[in-house]
């Protein structure tokens, strides 16, 4: 190790809402401490105060250009529960379809545009898969990079059929949706889905039919599938798995092993009179908290949500439920790791503490027997979690991609179930009240709380998946989930700690991360680079 401080910037990739700084301390080649800092404040909750009750439908999709449909979904359901609307089944299906196609878009876009580029990092040039990785996944010039990034624009064409454009439509409104699709919209959407399947999912990603892939129910099934045919082993999925093991991406990035999902996709016939308390029983993909230590599942409820602000730049009491928050930003946002160091609050479950949100969390919950018999159940990723001894960078990203096939089926379901001559909207009566709307954005648990008083917004609060994951330490000193996941990551080259990038990118946080690596003993800065 040289004495001079070396500053590096490598692989600038994904971001959404601003900058995230990650500081890690390295000792004997291993990360021993970590801090994540969100570095941008725009104040959407402050802007929404005293505005039209429906202002959230316009403003919140613009909180995030990647997850706009997810924000819109939350904003609409929050008003539905506040106004006690009736939502026709067509509208539930049309909202679900919008949510689904946004997530389908994100799969190849994040996978090729942001995640796989790291597998072409020169640090892995000794891997036997390196040459193939460079051929397929190099930015712009990689064969499958170009296929994946270009085809990622197709699924959201379906969003445009429903809402006019993606990103940033507001077609979901309390009482239903603005659109009334016709048969040609439905048939066109089918053909777009088919195109996505025939040109990417099956030939490039899986190397087999979706039906064959859907037979995989366990870790053993999956390993047998890889060995079954060269097309499987050499597909982008097969190569991802094999190379991940070869470069050790299955050995770190573990985290707390406790997960949260709000669940999503309300059933078209079960949430027509939406209430906050009635949501769990209406969801196709059930909500839940999974604790890996006790291997137990339970349902999640918004009432357990708490936000600590001891280490966040807000001058408010900590430990509040979002309905009780006032969003008072600290004017002087000086960075002090012992005091305040982030615009993100530290979100926790009142009983279970810090929880990881995201696609892996959804799959941990999907493997539980809690909930109702008709709700979605999928044992695969939880079985892998048990067999592989916990989470890792590899498993976290696999879970994200695995969900794609299931979302595809749910999109087909929506297209089959539309009753084109039935209503899409039932005009509601505006009233005062409290509402809550939630969904699962591709990157995890998202929800909005609204309080309408005197015909305007009294309080609007958003907790994004990134808030769960990249939050700073909570009042009790517990690290945020991403901070915790960094602990124990081996750093082969402290001047180019690509392993940190893998951990951060596996969370697909909505912030670009700038990573600062420090020597744990001397505090000397070793490297600084940007990641997703």
């Amino acid at each position, binding site marked *: 190790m040289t004495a001079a401080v070396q*500053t*590096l*910037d*490598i692989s*600038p*990739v994904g*971001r959404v*809402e601003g900058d995230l700084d990650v500081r890690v301390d390295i000792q004997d080649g291993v990360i021993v401490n970590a801090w994540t800092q969100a570095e*941008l*404040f*725009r*104040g959407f909750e402050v*802007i929404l105060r005293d*505005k*039209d*009750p*429906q202002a959230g439908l316009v*403003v919140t999709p*613009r*909180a*995030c*250009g990647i997850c*706009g449909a997810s924000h819109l979904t939350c904003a609409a359901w929050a008003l539905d529960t506040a106004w006690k609307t009736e939502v026709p089944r067509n*509208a539930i299906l049309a909202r679900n379809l919008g949510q689904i196609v946004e997530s389908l878009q994100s799969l190849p*876009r994040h996978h090729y*545009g942001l995640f796989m580029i790291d597998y072409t990092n020169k640090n892995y040039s000794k891997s036997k898969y390196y040459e193939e990785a460079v051929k397929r996944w190099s930015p*712009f*010039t990689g064969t499958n*990079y*170009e296929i994946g*990034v*270009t085809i990622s624009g197709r699924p*959201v*064409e379906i969003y*445009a*059929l429903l*809402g*006019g*454009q993606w*990103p940033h*439509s*507001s077609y979901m409104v309390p009482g*239903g*949706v*603005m*659109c*009334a699709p016709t*048969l040609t919209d439905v048939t*066109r959407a089918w053909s777009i889905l088919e195109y996505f399947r025939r040109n990417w999912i099956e030939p490039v990603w899986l190397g087999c039919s979706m039906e064959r892939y859907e037979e995989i129910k366990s870790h053993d099934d999956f390993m047998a599938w890889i060995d079954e045919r060269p097309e499987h082993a050499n597909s982008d999925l097969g190569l991802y798995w094999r190379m991940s093991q070869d470069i050790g991406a299955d050995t770190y990035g573990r985290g707390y092993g406790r997960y949260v999902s709000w669940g999503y996709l309300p059933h078209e016939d079960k949430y027509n009179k939406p209430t906050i308390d009635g949501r769990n029983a209406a969801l196709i993909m059930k909500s839940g908290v999974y604790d890996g230590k006790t291997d137990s599942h339970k349902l999640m409820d918004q009432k357990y949500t708490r936000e600590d602000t001891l280490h966040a730049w807000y001058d408010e009491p900590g430990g509040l439920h979002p309905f009780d928050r006032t969003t008072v*930003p600290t004017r*002087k*946002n000086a960075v002090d790791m012992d005091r305040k160091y982030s615009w993100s609050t530290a979100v926790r479950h009142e009983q279970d503490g810090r929880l990881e949100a995201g696609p892996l969390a959804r799959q941990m919950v999907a493997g539980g027997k809690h909930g109702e018999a008709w709700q979605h159940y999928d044992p695969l990723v939880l079985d892998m979690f048990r067999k592989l001894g916990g989470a890792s960078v590899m498993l976290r990203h696999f879970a994200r991609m695995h969900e794609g096939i299931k979302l595809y089926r749910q999109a087909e379901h929506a297209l089959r179930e539309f009753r084109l*001559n039935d*209503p*899409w*909207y039932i*005009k509601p009566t505006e009233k005062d009240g409290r509402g809550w709307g939630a969904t699962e954005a591709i990157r995890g648990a998202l929800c909005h709380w609204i309080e309408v008083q005197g015909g305007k917004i009294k309080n609007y609060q958003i907790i994004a998946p990134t808030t769960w994951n990249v939050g700073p330490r909570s009042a009790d000193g517990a690290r945020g989930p991403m901070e915790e996941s960094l602990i124990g990551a081996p750093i082969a080259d402290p001047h180019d700690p690509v392993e940190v990038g893998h951990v951060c990118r596996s969370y697909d946080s909505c912030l*670009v991360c*700038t990573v600062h690596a420090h020597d744990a003993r001397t505090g000397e800065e070793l490297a600084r680079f*940007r990641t997703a």
Partner: protein
Amino acid sequence: MANLLWLQGGACSGNTMSFLNAEEPSACDLVTDFGVNVLWHPSLGMELGENLQKMLRALVAGELPLDIFVFEGTVVNAPDGSGEWNRFAGRPMKQWVADLAKVANFTVAIGDCATWGGIPATAPNPSESEGLQFLKRQHGGFLGKDYKSKAGLPVINVPGCPAHPDWITQIVVAVATGRGGDLSLDEFQRPKTFFTSFTQTGCTRNMHFAYKVSATEFGQRKGCLFYDLGCRGPMTHSPCNRVLWNRQSSKTRAGMPCLGCTEPEFPFFDLAPGTVFKTQTVMGVPKDMPAGVDKTGYIKLTAAAKAASPRWAEEDIFVV
């Protein structure tokens, strides 16, 4: 070969996401076919192999030419003008913007945030945000009203929330192929080729507008969204119904009222109670008229339209 640098301030990345939906040319085509050399972009995965700050400093020092400087998001000035609420590469983003705008051949503001301040600048504008050369309708913005890039143009404003991918790629291609001089800008510095016609131009509901047949609530299969649902299509400049979105549709075609997001006032009325998805009227006459129409003309026009309206116009037209 044109060097392009794309930075984000108070942004949601919506314009980047929109840009990645482009097909003719696609983001990859810009690089491989048009020789656009993307020096850095927060989402596009180039390995730099060198220090980002070092590269930024080389650009600022003029050692590396900056042909196109694209800025997405607002310039954040909070708190108290310092810009510390949006830090980037070790300092407030606004300081980078000031330095880079001085050396850029063309400076392009992408999306409402960078052009006029957009959603973050909505009252009470907690982040003290502004656009590069405007704050809402007020000329000046962060760079000042006299700012000109090295090519002699003011900031090229490509508004929209988000901007359509074609609006972005066509401007980049024009500059990269040496046609930057052909860009002609309107009073808000928007390229005239896109922002002279109206959102309503090409809308599938134009006949309902002409006969004053209103969509009175959402989810209907007929009617114009202007009369009751607050659509701003007749007074908003954009090609949304000429250059379709995601190759398929537009908001007004799908049944969503235009929010006027290519105009400096977006979001209109600061989203005050009673203004969202509702046409603002005085004695039954819209407060905001179709561009160039006065109140007397409007009353005459709609009376005649109603009287002449054929029966089919009242029946469903966008049928299953």
